[in-house]
């Protein structure tokens, strides 16, 4: 090699290094700009387009729609009197005291199962009753759903985080599965599992019990269980991720200082899990506050929520009222998110390196298997089997049966449609392919977006908290409204000067919309871990000459890897399960996904749609195992 060559080599290397240094210096800024760009086009623009409908009627700004909703007892119940005359404080106080005075508490014996003589002491609280209104009822069922989801999700997190057993990793991957199922499939699955002639009653019949009308007797309870079906896995997943990033040395220190295992758990581990549990609870509340298909399908109109009314208003083209309801709904969710974030940011500063606690074998021998704790795990496993596996298994069974028994013809339909389907018909393979491609695309965009937002708000004080709360907007806005906004803002297009229209459709738009729906999960999984890191670690890396980007990639990210992987799995799941914006943005007929195919096959026969739903289950289950295995390698 001549000297000139060598010099050229060195120069080239310097240019590459210079380019890399330039990139590293600006990487965060560039990624931040890209993130803001995606958010403005795919989120703030569409949502803004709809919300303007609420406050501008015929070109004149007005708050009349708000006044109407807030003073209507149908919507806000007893609060309507307060809103219509907010200054009559004395009158409102008298009303409250009068109500309190009429409350009575008594102890009685109840028989909760009408067919079984099982007496339960019951604390009966009698109140004169208060009109909740649509908003009040929506919040009430969301609160119950949240409690149920946390109660069902935490034991799962405990089992997955503390025990080692065959298939633990696979099970952990599959916890996210319920998340991707379209509402219709879940409703059909629940009926097939809990219905009068359903699987559970079939099993009860074998031991001479039932049939028990689970859904008929208490629809609210079944709706809440269905919400737990969706959201308990979310609680479990987020909590496991936090559990696995607990530094075992802190526990060992506590133990060496004489703390009992219970004390060590309560004082060391529990405080580190608490933000994750609250995150799960918050997300569950927000989701179930905006629930729509599940309440109507299982509970019926009696359990209607605010979202049901928004959907109805939009169908009737009453956009002002729909937007008003949506804004109020969003304010509730964002307010809660903000309150939670204040709490989360108040708790930063615990230095922690990921050295996850060791796991003990679940059933090492028979003696251990019979201890109360192991038996409780088995008991929980049975409950989980009924709640989670029951509906999904019933769906799968439904895809192989018709009125007269076992059949493969529902799958034959899918095959035939794949082979002979015409261009305007929905074929299964493109749906599978599109779902997976969009899922990967979503991962590629949502994970960096979520991390960027976490990093930029982690230590920015109150302003950071507000920005963080606003960044949660995709979770807080009703899906119906978001869909309409995408349609009006991006599909129809925004008129620009010179006769142009800004229009965004097709696969790129779908992936961007999925990413916008998904990044909050990355942020909410990463932020608590990032906030808990010792700022001194980043500062020393910076003092040693690392760029902010280097410090992030080399120091912070490896320490919060479990959060990133958990967030990434959610991002993938959100993309696979997403329905409304996919349908709206799919420009050509060839950009449909698996859930869209399920809905399109719903006709006056059930078979094809359920078979497609089963295919969705299988493909998603397989891809989650892969995502988690790949993610697991990143975590190590």
């Amino acid at each position, binding site marked *: 090699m001549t000297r000139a060559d060598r010099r050229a080599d060195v120069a080239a290397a310097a240019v590459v290094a210079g380019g890399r240094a330039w990139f590293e210096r600006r990487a965060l800024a560039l990624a931040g700009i890209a993130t803001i760009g995606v958010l403005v086009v795919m989120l703030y623009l569409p949502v803004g387009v709809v919300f303007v409908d609420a406050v501008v009627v015929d070109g004149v700004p007005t708050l009349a729609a708000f006044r109407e909703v807030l003073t209507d007892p149908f919507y806000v119940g007893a609060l309507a009197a307060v809103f219509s005359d907010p200054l009559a404080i004395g009158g409102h106080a008298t009303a409250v005291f009068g109500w309190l005075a009429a409350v009575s508490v008594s102890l009685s014996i109840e028989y909760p199962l009408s067919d079984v003589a099982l007496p339960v002491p019951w604390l009966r609280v009698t109140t004169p009753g208060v009109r909740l209104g649509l908003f009040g009822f929506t919040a009430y069922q969301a609160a119950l759903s949240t409690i149920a989801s946390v109660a069902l999700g935490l034991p799962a997190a405990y089992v997955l985080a503390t025990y080692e057993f065959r298939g633990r990793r696979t099970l952990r991957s599959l916890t996210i599965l319920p998340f991707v199922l379209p509402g219709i499939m879940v409703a059909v699955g629940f009926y097939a599992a809990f219905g009068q002639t359903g699987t559970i009653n079939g099993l009860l019949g074998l031991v001479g019990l039932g049939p028990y009308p689970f859904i008929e007797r208490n629809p609210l309870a079944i709706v809440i269980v269905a919400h737990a079906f969706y959201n308990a896995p979310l609680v479990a997943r987020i909590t496991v991720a936090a559990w696995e990033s607990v530094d075992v040395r802190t526990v060992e220190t506590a133990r060496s200082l004489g703390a009992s295992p219970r004390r060590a758990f309560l004082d060391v581990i529990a405080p580190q899990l608490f933000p994750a549990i609250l995150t799960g609870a918050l997300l569950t509340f927000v989701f179930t506050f905006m629930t729509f298909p599940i309440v109507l399908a299982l509970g019926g109109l009696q359990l209607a929520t605010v979202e049901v009314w928004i959907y109805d208003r939009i169908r009737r083209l009453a956009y002002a009222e729909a937007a008003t309801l949506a804004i109020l709904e969003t304010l509730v969710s964002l307010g809660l998110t903000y309150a939670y974030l204040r709490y989360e940011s108040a708790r930063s500063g615990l230095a922690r390196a990921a050295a996850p606690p060791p796991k003990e074998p679940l059933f090492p021998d028979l003696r251990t298997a019979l201890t109360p704790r192991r038996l409780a795990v088995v008991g929980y496993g049975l409950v989980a089997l009924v709640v989670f596996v029951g509906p999904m298994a019933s769906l799968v069974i439904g895809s192989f049966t018709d009125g007269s028994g076992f059949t493969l013809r529902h799958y034959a339909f899918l095959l035939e449609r794949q082979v002979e389907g015409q261009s*305007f018909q929905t074929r299964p393979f493109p749906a599978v392919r599109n779902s997976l491609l969009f899922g990967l695309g979503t991962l590629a965009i949502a994970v960096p977006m979520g991390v960027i937002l976490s990093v930029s708000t982690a230590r920015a004080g109150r302003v950071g908290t507000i920005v963080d709360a606003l960044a949660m907007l995709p979770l807080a806005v009703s899906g119906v409204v978001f869909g309409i906004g995408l349609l009006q803002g991006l599909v129809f297009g925004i008129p620009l000067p010179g006769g142009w229209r800004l229009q965004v459709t097709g696969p790129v738009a779908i992936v961007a919309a999925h990413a916008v729906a998904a990044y909050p999960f990355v942020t909410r999984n990463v932020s608590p871990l990032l906030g808990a890191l010792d700022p001194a670690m980043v500062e020393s890396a910076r003092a040693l000459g690392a760029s902010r980007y280097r410090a992030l990639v080399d120091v912070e990210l490896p320490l919060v890897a479990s959060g990133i992987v958990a967030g990434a799995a959610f991002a993938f799941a959100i993309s696979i399960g997403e329905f409304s914006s996919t349908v709206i943005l799919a420009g050509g007929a060839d950009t449909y996904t698996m859930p869209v195919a399920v809905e399109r096959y719903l006709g006056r026969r059930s078979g094809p749609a359920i078979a497609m739903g089963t295919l969705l289950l299988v493909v998603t289950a397989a891809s989650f195992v892969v995502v988690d295995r790949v993610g697991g390698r990143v975590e190590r």
Partner: protein
Amino acid sequence: MKRRTFVGAVGGGAVAGLAGCVTRDGDDGPENGTEPGDPEPEEPDLSGELIVATYESMVDDENPAGTWLKEAFEEAHPDAELTWTVPESGLNHYIRREQEEADLDADVYLGVNVDDLARIDDALDDGGLFRELNLDRIGRADRIRNGLEMGDPHGRVLPYDTGYISLVYDETEVDEPTTFDDLTAPAYENALLTQNAQNSDPGQAFLLWTIDAFGEDGYLDYWRELADNGVRVLDDWYESYYGAYMEGQRSMIVSYSTDQVFASAEGYDMSRHQVAFLNDQGYANPEGMAIFDRATKIDLAYEFVNFVLSSDAQAEIAQRNVQFPAVASEHVELDPEFDRYAHEPPEAVTMEYDRLRGNLDGWVDDWAREFASQ
């Protein structure tokens, strides 16, 4: 005779339609306003791509009518191509596009209900979105049966099939209900299942049927009695039928009078698929077709509308869509199997445009508020 009543109804509408059109000022369509409909051209242009918008089960069901229609139409018109399009939000999609003045990209809409027409006219100008049809260009329009008039004063729509909302019940659990009052009797306590009229076609049809039976002032009282007797209102037809009814939750459901056609095809136990007509009535839900105001392939669109009313097309649509044909029985031959299992009510009830216009939203809203969480 039949021809005269039908043409009379549509013709009468045409005059009112004209009056409605004149009030639209600054309209972009040259054919609107002053000229009476679409004059028949000397040489109709029957080539090119005709875009027909419709609902999903028309093209994506197990054995959809859409595939047959496309093939047969293209065979009859070798220079033409039929392209199906299925907008996600149905007709609302085009109403919004009309409001936003965005491109429509469609010539014909297959699947317009009467209440859609009322909604169009509430949201757009009266007589909006679709053209007033020139029936002289649709030779087979006179085949349409009596009782399917949709009462559009602007003459925009012709029916191509109809379903009848009725009750489907399990004869091993309850006796056949014959009147509306039966449903509030103790024998039918906790038996009836219906759908949310806010977002379900049969649900809304059943609500309208009760309004027809009890009047605007009486229907809510009747529904309160139904509620006291334990009626259950689920989301839509699919979930209430395949979820709740087929899983044995209830012994009666608001559904279609063609239910047995499916039940026999699927091998279901017929005792759970008995059809009952309250007051010897069924609520007719005719489905109509219309040509967009801003359609580009007018001649082809007229040709298509006429084609849909042909005997072959009517038989195929009826059997594949499992609905009744829109044309009189002498113009269509159906499989004996279809005739055997599809039941027609002695009397068809339907609310026409005039009664729905301006009332429908209020009726549904009052009803929903009565039932929703309080």
